C-alpha cells in the first residue's frame, strides 16, 4: 500500500493528483510551473504533498506524468537543428507539405516554415519503388559526403526519409550506419523506424518532429528521474503517451514521437474514466485553460482516436487521442471593430500577462475578465490561492469596451461571454457534423481552470442534456495519468488489394506484430499482467484518397475469413459516411495492432446518497441572462452526495468556479460529481 501520484505539467500550473491506496481518497495540489527549470515544480509539489497531506515521498509507489514539453518545443521552435536526407529530386517534401495553404482567402497566406530549412535537406541518389524493389542502389559515397556537409553546416541530428521506406527500411538503415560512422554520437532517425506509414510528407514530418524534440524531451526526462530520486521517491516515473497509454520514462527518451501530446491526452483519459465511472455512454470533454479550449469525443469510456493531430504549425501522423481546439481559452481578448461591433479573439493574453484581473500587467479585457465583471467569478481566489482576482481591474478593462459600444459594464461583459460561447458553439457544431454526431446525445464533461465556468452556457447552445463537473476539475489531467494503461501501437503498411491472396500476408503480418507487441509489454515495460490485443486495418475503396480504420476480429483473421474482414470495412464506411459499396474493390493499406496492459485503477469511494437540498454559503450579486440577480453561492466542499439545488447558482472550489444559469438543476452524485441537467425538476 502506498500513494499513486499523477502529475500534469502545464504552461502556467502544475497539477498533482494523489491517490491514497489505503484510504481510497483522491487529493490534489497545484503549484506554478517552472519552464525555466523543468523538474523543479515536481520537487516543489512532492514536498507540498508531504507538508499538506502528509504523503511521505518514499511511499510514492507509482508516479505518472503528462507533459507539454514536446508540444512546447515545436510551438516555440526550440528543437534540434536537423539535417534531412531524402531521395534525390524530392527535396521539397517539407517545403511543399500537402500543398494546401492555411488561409484560403488571403493572397498573402503561406505554409508555416518547415522545421528543417531547405539548405539542410540533402538529396541522396538511390531509389526504391512501391513494390519494394530497388531501382537504384543507395549511393553510399553521396551519403558520406552529405553527412560531412551536414555536420559542417551545424547539424545536430539527421532524419532520413527515403521514398517508399514504409515498405522496406533497408536503404534508410544503410544510410544511418554510414552517418553514424562519419559522425559518431550524432542522433540519427529513420522514418521507417519512427512510424512507417505510406505518404512521404506525413511520414517525413512525423519523423522530423520526433527528432526535433528528442534531446529536449530526453534531457527533461533525465532531470525528472534525477529529481524524483533526490527527493526519495522510489517509483520509476512513467509517461502518458499521445495514444492515451503510458510507457516508462526510459522508453520515452527513445521514442519521443510517442509522447508529444502527452499533456492533452492525459486530460481526455481522465475525462474518459470519469465518464465510465458515471455510466455516461457518450460525452464530449471540454478542457478550457488560460490559452486553450479543447474538446474530445468519448464513447463508452473510450476516447476517439485519430491521426493527424495538430502540434503548433504542424500535424503529426501517429495514433493519438483526438483532441480539437475550439478556441483560445479564458485569455481570449475582446475588442470592438471599426464599425462598433463587439468581437472576441483570436488574440489571447496568454498566461503572461494574462487577464487584467490577474493583476500581472494585462489591461485588455479577456473572457475571464468578463466573467469577473459580471460578478459570476471572483468570489474566491483561483488556483489554490495562486492567483488573487482583482475585480476592479476586470471592470476597468471591460469598461473601456463598454464605453465604445455604449452599454453598461455588465451588459458588455455578458455580451463578451455570449460571443465567446457562440464562437465555441460554432467550432463544436462543425466538428460534430464532421463526425456525424448529434450533440443532443452527448453529455458535456467540463474540466480545466475555466471549463466549469463556461460549460453550462455552451451546453445550452448545443442543446446537450447534461453537464458533468468532476470533484477536482482542475486536476483531471493529472488524474488521467493514474488511470492510463500501458499501451502501444504497432503497424505495417501492406498496400494490398483485398482478395484471397491477401489472407496469408495478413495472417503472417499480424503474427509478427503480435510477437513485437508482446515483447514490448513483457520485455520493455516489465509487465506480466493480463493484456488485450486489438486488431484493426486501415482500408479504403480503390480510388479513395483516405483510409478508415476498421476493427477486425482476431478469430476471423486466424481462420482466414476474408468476407468478415471486408465486411468490417463496409460497416465502418457506412457508419462514418452513411453509405457503403459492397461491389467495389477494397484495398488494405495498413495492418494495425494495439496492445494494452491494464494497470491497476484507483477505485473511488462512493458516498451514500442523502437526497435533500444543498445549503448555500451566502448570496452574491451577479449579472446573468440580461439582468442583475442575487444568486446563491455554494462551496463545493460543503456539497454532499445526493444533494440538489437549482440554477442560477455559483459553485466555488479551490481550482475553479462552476456557473449554473437558470433552468439547470444540479445534483451531486455518489462520486461527488456535479450532474447539471437542463430542464429536469430538481
Amino acid at each position, binding site marked *: 500500500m502506498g500513494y499513486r501520484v499523477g502529475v500534469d505539467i502545464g504552461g502556467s500550473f502544475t497539477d498533482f493528483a494523489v491517490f491514497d491506496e489505503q484510504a481510497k481518497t483522491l487529493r490534489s495540489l497545484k503549484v506554478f510551473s517552472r519552464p525555466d527549470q523543468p523538474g523543479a515544480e515536481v520537487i516543489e509539489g512532492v514536498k507540498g504533498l508531504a507538508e499538506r497531506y502528509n504523503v511521505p515521498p518514499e511511499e510514492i509507489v507509482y508516479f505518472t506524468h503528462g507533459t507539454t514539453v514536446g508540444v512546447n518545443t515545436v510551438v516555440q521552435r526550440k528543437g534540434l537543428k536537423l539535417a534531412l536526407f531524402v531521395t534525390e529530386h524530392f527535396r521539397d517534401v517539407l517545403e511543399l507539405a500537402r500543398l494546401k495553404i492555411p488561409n484560403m482567402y488571403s*493572397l*498573402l497566406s503561406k505554409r508555416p516554415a518547415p522545421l528543417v530549412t531547405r539548405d539542410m535537406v540533402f538529396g541522396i541518389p538511390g531509389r526504391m519503388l512501391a513494390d519494394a524493389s530497388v531501382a537504384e542502389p543507395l549511393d553510399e559515397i553521396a551519403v558520406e559526403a552529405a553527412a560531412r556537409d551536414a555536420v559542417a553546416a551545424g547539424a545536430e541530428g539527421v532524419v532520413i526519409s527515403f521514398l517508399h521506406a514504409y515498405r522496406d527500411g533497408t536503404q534508410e538503415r544503410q544510410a544511418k550506419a554510414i552517418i553514424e560512422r562519419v559522425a559518431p554520437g550524432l542522433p540519427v532517425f529513420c522514418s521507417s523506424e519512427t512510424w512507417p506509414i505510406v505518404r512521404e510528407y506525413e511520414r517525413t514530418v512525423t519523423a522530423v518532429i520526433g527528432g526535433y524534440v528528442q534531446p529536449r524531451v530526453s534531457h527533461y526526462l533525465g532531470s525528472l528521474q534525477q529529481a524524483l530520486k533526490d527527493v526519495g521517491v522510489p517509483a520509476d516515473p512513467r509517461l502518458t503517451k499521445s495514444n492515451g497509454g503510458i510507457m516508462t520514462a526510459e522508453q520515452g527518451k527513445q521514442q519521443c514521437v510517442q509522447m508529444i501530446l502527452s499533456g492533452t491526452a492525459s486530460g481526455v483519459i481522465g475525462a474518459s474514466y470519469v465518464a465510465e465511472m458515471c455510466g455516461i455512454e457518450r460525452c464530449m470533454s471540454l478542457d478550457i485553460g488560460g490559452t486553450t479550449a479543447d474538446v474530445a469525443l468519448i464513447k463508452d469510456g473510450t476516447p476517439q482516436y485519430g491521426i493527424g493531430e495538430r502540434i503548433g504549425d504542424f500535424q503529426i501522423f501517429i495514433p493519438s487521442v483526438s483532441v480539437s481546439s475550439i478556441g483560445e481559452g479564458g485569455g481570449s481578448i475582446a475588442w470592438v471593430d471599426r464599425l462598433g461591433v463587439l468581437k472576441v479573439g483570436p488574440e489571447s493574453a496568454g498566461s503572461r500577462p494574462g487577464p487584467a484581473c490577474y493583476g500581472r500587467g494585462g489591461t485588455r479585457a479577456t473572457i475571464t475578465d468578463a466573467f469577473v465583471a459580471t460578478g459570476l467569478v471572483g468570489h474566491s481566489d483561483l488556483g489554490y490561492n495562486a492567483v488573487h482576482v482583482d475585480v476592479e481591474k476586470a471592470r476597468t478593462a471591460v469598461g473601456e469596451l463598454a464605453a465604445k459600444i455604449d452599454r453598461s459594464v455588465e451588459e458588455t461583459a455578458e*455580451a463578451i461571454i*455570449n460571443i465567446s460561447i457562440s464562437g465555441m458553439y*460554432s467550432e463544436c*457544431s462543425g466538428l460534430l457534423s464532421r463526425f456525424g454526431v448529434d450533440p443532443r446525445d452527448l453529455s458535456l464533461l467540463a474540466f480545466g481552470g475555466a471549463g466549469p465556468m463556461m460549460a453550462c452556457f455552451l451546453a445550452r447552445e448545443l442543446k446537450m442534456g447534461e453537464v458533468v463537473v468532476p470533484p477536482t476539475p482542475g486536476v483531471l489531467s493529472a488524474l488521467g495519468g493514474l488511470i492510463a494503461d500501458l499501451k502501444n501501437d504497432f503497424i505495417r503498411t501492406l498496400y494490398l488489394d483485398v482478395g484471397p491472396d491477401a489472407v496469408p500476408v495478413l495472417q503472417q503480418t499480424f503474427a509478427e506484430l503480435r510477437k513485437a507487441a508482446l515483447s514490448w509489454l513483457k520485455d520493455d515495460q516489465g509487465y506480466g499482467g493480463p493484456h488485450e490485443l486489438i486488431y484493426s486495418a486501415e482500408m479504403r475503396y480503390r*480510388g479513395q484518397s483516405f483510409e478508415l480504420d476498421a476493427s477486425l476480429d482476431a478469430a476471423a483473421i486466424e481462420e482466414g475469413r476474408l468476407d468478415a474482414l471486408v465486411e468490417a470495412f463496409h460497416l465502418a464506411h457506412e457508419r462514418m459516411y452513411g453509405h457503403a459499396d459492397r461491389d467495389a474493390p477494397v484495398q488494405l493499406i495498413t495492418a494495425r495492432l494495439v496492445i494494452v496492459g491494464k494497470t491497476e485503477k484507483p477505485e473511488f469511494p462512493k458516498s451514500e446518497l442523502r437526497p435533500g437540498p444543498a445549503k448555500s454559503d451566502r448570496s452574491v450579486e451577479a449579472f446573468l441572462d440580461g439582468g442583475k440577480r442575487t444568486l446563491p453561492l455554494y462551496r463545493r466542499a460543503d456539497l454532499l452526495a445526493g444533494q440538489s439545488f437549482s440554477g442560477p447558482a455559483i459553485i466555488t472550489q479551490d481550482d475553479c468556479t462552476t456557473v449554473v444559469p437558470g433552468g439547470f438543476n444540479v445534483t451531486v452524485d455518489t462520486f461527488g460529481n456535479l450532474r447539471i441537467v437542463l430542464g429536469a425538476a430538481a
Partner: protein
Amino acid sequence: MIIDKATLQVLANHCAAAAESMGYTLMRTAYSTFVKETEDFSCQLMNSRGATVASPMTMGATWYTGLDYGPVIRMFDDYREGDVYGTNDPYSGHVATHSPDMHLWAPVFHGGELVCFVGNHIHNTDVGGAVPASLSRTLTEVHQEGIRIPPTLLVRDGVMNEEMVRTLELNVRVPEQNRGDLNAQFACLKVGERKVHDIIERFGVEAFKAGLDQLLDYAEEQARSLVATIPDGDYEFADYADEDAANGYPARINLTVKVRGDTLLFDFTGTDPQLVSSLNMPTGGNPRHSLITVGLVYVLYTLDPTIILNSGTVRMLDAILPSGTVVNCEFPAAVGMRSLLSNVLQAVIVGAFTRALPDKLPASPGNGLSLVNVRTTTRGGRTIMASIGPVGGGAGGGPYEDGAEGSGANMSFLKNTPVEISESEIPIRIHKYGLVPDSGGAGLHRGGSALLMEFQLFAPQSMVTARNRDRSMISAWGVEGGQPGAQSTFTRNPYGPAPEELRNADIVPLQPGDTLRLIGPGAGGYGPAHERPIEKVVEDVRCGFVSVAKARAGYGVALNGDGSVDEAETAKLRKAMAASATTDHFSHGSGRVAFESVWTKARYALLTRILREVPVTWRFFVKHELFRVLEGRTAGRDGGTGELLAAYGDLAARFEDLPPASAFADGAVVPVAAE
C-alpha cells in the same frame, strides 16, 4: 435594428456554425472521391431573397461566398416546406457556372412562413457530353458539355422527382456517383434547415430574419469602409491567357477599376469576344456574379482578414460586362473550362488594385496551375485513371514577405497527391517533384517558385490530361520593380534526342517509355530586386531557390566560390541596377512584351471597337483572322492602327455580314464607351 452590435457577432457565429455543419455533412456523406479530395463544393445559408449570408470558410471552393441564388429562386412562386430545387444549367439564371456543378436550394419555413433558403453545390465528376468528365477546352457549344437540367423541383412532400433523376442517370457515365452525391446534397440541406430552426429558437424569428439582413449590411459596411481607404481613381490593367482555344491566340481580359468613395465600378470594356472554345464565363451580365467577384473578395480579405464574407461584401460593386465577350458570353457558348479565364480574371483584378494599393497587395500568382490526370493500363490490362496532382506556381511576392512556394494566393485550396500513392496506384515512375530554382520573379520580396513534376509511363495508349495549362508564353507580372516569374513549360522526353515542347497542350497521348516534364509558371516578384537584403539573397542561394548566376544577374549580388559575398562587386552591380531601374508599376515577361509590340493598346482599342459591331457569331473568327494577318507585324510609333484597319478592310470586303472598314476609319482612336 433588432440585433444590436453587441450581439451581432453571436448571430454571425451561429450562421457560420450552420454553414460549417452543412459543409462537413456534405463532405462526409459525399459519394464521389472527387468531392472529398478536391473539395469542389459550396454551401450557403441565404436570406429569403437568395443572397448568401454565410458559407463555410475552412473547406470547399473559395468562389461562392457571395453567391446570389435570387435569379433561380424567383423562377418559382409556390415554395412549400420540404421542397428541394436544383439546376446545373449555366444559362438558366446564371447561378451554375458550368454543367458539372449541380446547384440545389431549399426553402426553410417557420410557422408557415418562408424565412430563408439553404443551398449547396457539388462538382459532379461527370455529367455526360462529348468527353469523360464533361470538360475540355476543345468543346465549342454548351450542348457538348453534358446534360443540362433547368431549374426544377426535385423533391416535394418527401417524394423525389424520380423521372428527373432517371433522366440524369441515363445521360451520365457513372450514374451511381451522381445519385450518391445528390443524396449527400439533400443531407446537407436537411442539416441546414435544422440549424436554421435552432437559430430561430435562440433568437426569435423576427430577429433572425432581420439579423440575416443586418449581417449582409454589416459585411457591406465593412467592405465599403475598406474601399473608402482606397484612393479614388481609375485603375486599368489587362492580362492574357496564352491561348483562347487549342493552339489559339491570346485571350485578353481588360479591366478598369473605378474607385469612387466607397463604391467600385469594374469596366471590362476592351475584353476579348467570346470564344469558340469552352473558356467563356457565363455571368449573364450580373455585375456581382460569383465569377466576377472572386478576385475582389480575395483583395478585400487580404486587406482585412477579420471581415465577414457574404453577398453584402460585394454590394458596393457595379460592373460593365459587355455582352458577347468572355466575361459575359452568350448562349450557346461552351463554358466548361471557364476556370482558366477565371484565374486570369482574378489576376487582372488583383493587378488593377495593386495600382491603387501598391503597398498592400502582392504581385501576380503563378496561375496556370494545371490539374494533371493520367490514364493508363496496368500489367493485368486494367484501365486506370488517377489524378497525380496539381502542377503550378507559387504566390506573388507580397508587400511584407516572399510569396508562398509552389502554390498559393488564388490556388490555395488544392492538395497534392503523394508520390508514394501515385506510384502505388498507377504504373508510373515519378522521377522528380519539387520546386524550380530561379523560377520566382526576382524582387525585394521574391515571387513563389514554380513546381516541377517529371514522370514516365510504360503502357501503350496512355494519356495525360493537364487542364488549365497556361503562362507558357505570358509570364506572371511583377510589381513595383519586382520582376516577372518564369514561364511554364511542358516537354515530352526532355532528355531524349528530340525533346518536344507541348506548350499549353491539355491532352497528351504517350507512347510506352515516354517521359513528360511539367514546370508551372513562377510567380511575380515585389519591389526592386537590388533592394533585397544581401543576406536574404545569400540564404536563397544556400537553400537553392536562387542560383549563383541569378543572384548576380537578378539581384546584383556577386558570390565568391566559397559562397561569401564579393562586397565590392556587389556594390557596383547594385548601383548599376538602381540606376537603370524601371519606374513602371508592372514588369512583364518577354512573351507579353513581344505580343504587345504587335498588339498595342491602340490596335487593341480599335479591335475592340470593330468586334463590338461584328455579330457575336463572327467575333471569334474575325479576331483570329486579324491576329493571323498581323502576326509578327510590330506596330510603329502611331500604334499601328492603320495596318489593322487595312487588314479588317480586306476581311470585310470578303464577307458582307461584316460592317465595312469605313465605319471605323475616323482616324483618332477614341476610348470605347461602355455598353
